[in-house]
């Protein structure tokens, strides 16, 4: 599935993927989708937790061609 913006956070350790998400999500329009490719295991918990705390919508995860999880977030505000 496509995203308006995909961040490559491979090889970044927590909390860096969530920091990158917070720094860049405003670059997609409200209603748009930002994706974060992250192999750090903490992202599986921390991306949904960030969405809950920052009132954004967590859409779920899919795998990139190299098997790295890609976390998808819809910007709500």
């Amino acid at each position: 599935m496509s995203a308006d913006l995909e961040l490559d956070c491979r090889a970044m350790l927590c909390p860096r993927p969530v920091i990158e998400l917070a720094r860049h999500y405003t670059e997609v329009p409200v209603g748009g989708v930002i994706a974060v490719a992250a192999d750090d295991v903490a992202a599986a918990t921390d991306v949904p937790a960030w969405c809950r705390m920052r009132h954004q919508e967590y859409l779920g995860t899919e795998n990139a061609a190299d098997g790295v999880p890609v976390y998808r977030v819809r910007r709500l505000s």
Partner: protein
Amino acid sequence: MTAPGEQPPATYLDTASSEPLHPAARAVLEQALEAGYADPRRLHGPARNARILLDNAREATADALGVRPDEVTFTPSGTHAVHLGVLGLLAGRARHGDHLAASAVEHSSVLHAGRWHADRGGSFSTLPVDSLGRVLPEVAGSPAVIAVQSANHEVGTVQPVAVFAGAAPVFMDASASAGRLPLPEGWDAAAASAHKWGGPAGVGVLLVRKGARWRNPFPTDDRVEERATGMENVAGALASAAALQAVVAERAEVGPRQHALIDRLRHGVAAIEDTEIVGDPVDRLPHLVTFSFLYVDGEAIVTELDRRGFAVASGSACTASTLEPSHVLAAMGALTHGNVRISLTRETSANDVDRLLAQLPGIVADLRAEAGL
């Protein structure tokens, strides 16, 4: 030997990892080391002295925990007591089934026992928890044994152990609450660890209810007691019992005081933006709270607090030897980075809490600024 560096004493806020030795234990330990060196199973005078000390330790521990003396066994650690408790109930149920169901937020020693059991042909699954970390009361299938802790060691939430009674024999890891809260009803075997209530390290307690079907899952030796692993740490057990008695005697005063201090801490931390305070705010351990700061590196905040004289723990991945985040926080769906666990001593004051609260906003702001936020 080298002495620890000359530094002002830290404000120690990590008693959930290990409590300082209780003064009541210190006095007893020295005397018991003097008099309790012999093998309690021999037939001479020094052995009888050691036997009396060990029996005293057992009786005092039983009395403080509200169980029978013959239900108490001292083990070389809390982890070993957990392994004996979980795997011993499974061995006692071998003719009925081999499935262990444990809450997803158990201490790692319980989960490792489950994996060990599964590696040897048994089966193991975890029970989910809600967002407060409380295990959901539904159990799928018919497990041979259920493992549920008395209270969670990371977030403090008290667990509904009694609701699982009757579904299967229950193993309860009581390490986080023993001495601080009365033991709940509904378990068949339980474990605790003396250094978490102010006894010395190297003393665990295994409780097996009279009439429970329990079999030792490990090789033993020719000694008499079925549940003991080698010769007991007699002096350590007696010192642990003295600490436990003191903690239980003090808890009507210490518990509410700690509970109020944790409320004060929760309230103060909530004022810091983008902070998640984890666990049940009310039905919880009196002395413990966990919170997580968004965008903050857990190792960095522990290090900054250490530099300012505060000793705290963290469940964030970067602070763990495994590089995996806390399985407790992950099972709850709670934020795992920027995590700090505070656990109070019996002497922690409102002033200590306020000094910590005065430091946290600046540290968090600096670390977030370093991260580019």
